[in-house]
């Protein structure tokens, strides 16, 4: 199974852009990268998913380099409500269809 590594915690201020990088060195050809967000007392929420290059939606952007051994979640102009834990996952048939969560990155946004 592909293992992901991301920073345990990050601090930011309102209005800043936040980039959270995840490494997944043993990602397989058919795997793709997914990010989830979790607020206290809630279940994780799907944010964004990608295979390569760049994906953007109304919430975030996901940058994946050509070797796909890492990915970066970019949150533009964060607000206090973006304070949450962010999880990077590798999904796909090579993972047995499982959705395995690592420790995540606890993002704290300060005023």
């Amino acid at each position, binding site marked *: 199974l592909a293992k992901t590594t991301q920073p345990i915690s990050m601090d930011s201020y309102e209005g800043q852009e936040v980039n959270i990088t995840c490494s997944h060195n043993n990602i397989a050809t058919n795997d793709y990268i997914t990010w989830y967000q979790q607020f206290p007392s809630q*279940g994780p929420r*799907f944010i964004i*998913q990608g295979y390569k290059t760049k994906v953007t939606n109304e919430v975030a952007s996901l940058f994946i380099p050509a070797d796909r051994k890492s990915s970066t979640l970019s949150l533009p102009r964060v607000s206090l409500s973006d304070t949450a834990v962010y999880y990077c996952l590798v999904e*796909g048939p090579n993972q*047995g*269809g499982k*959705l*395995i969560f690592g420790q*995540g990155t606890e993002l704290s946004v300060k005023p």
Partner: protein
Amino acid sequence: DARVTQTPRDKVTEMGQEVTMRCQPILGHNTVFWYRQTMMQGLELLAYFRNRAPLDDSGMPKDRFSAEMPDATLATLKIQPSEPRDSAVYFCASGLVSGTSYNYGYTFGSGTRLTVV
């Protein structure tokens, strides 16, 4: 928005009692996961189903836990007998997987907070 419904929201029970948690996946979704979350262990995958068939329950303590999908609209997780160390938040998630294509994300329920005293 469609949502995954979990019941009960909170459950306090005495050690040794049976606990049943229920999950109603989103209509049309064919994949269901059960997770347990604690501060110490984070999100642990307990079991998952595809088209109601159990695909993996290796994360589940077999002697006391069981997971089933009696029909496409209901998934259950049972603990018998319950122990204090089972105290955690249990999440259910559902999604649609078609072949090897993207699933476009899973939707999680709000969880069942279980306290075993």
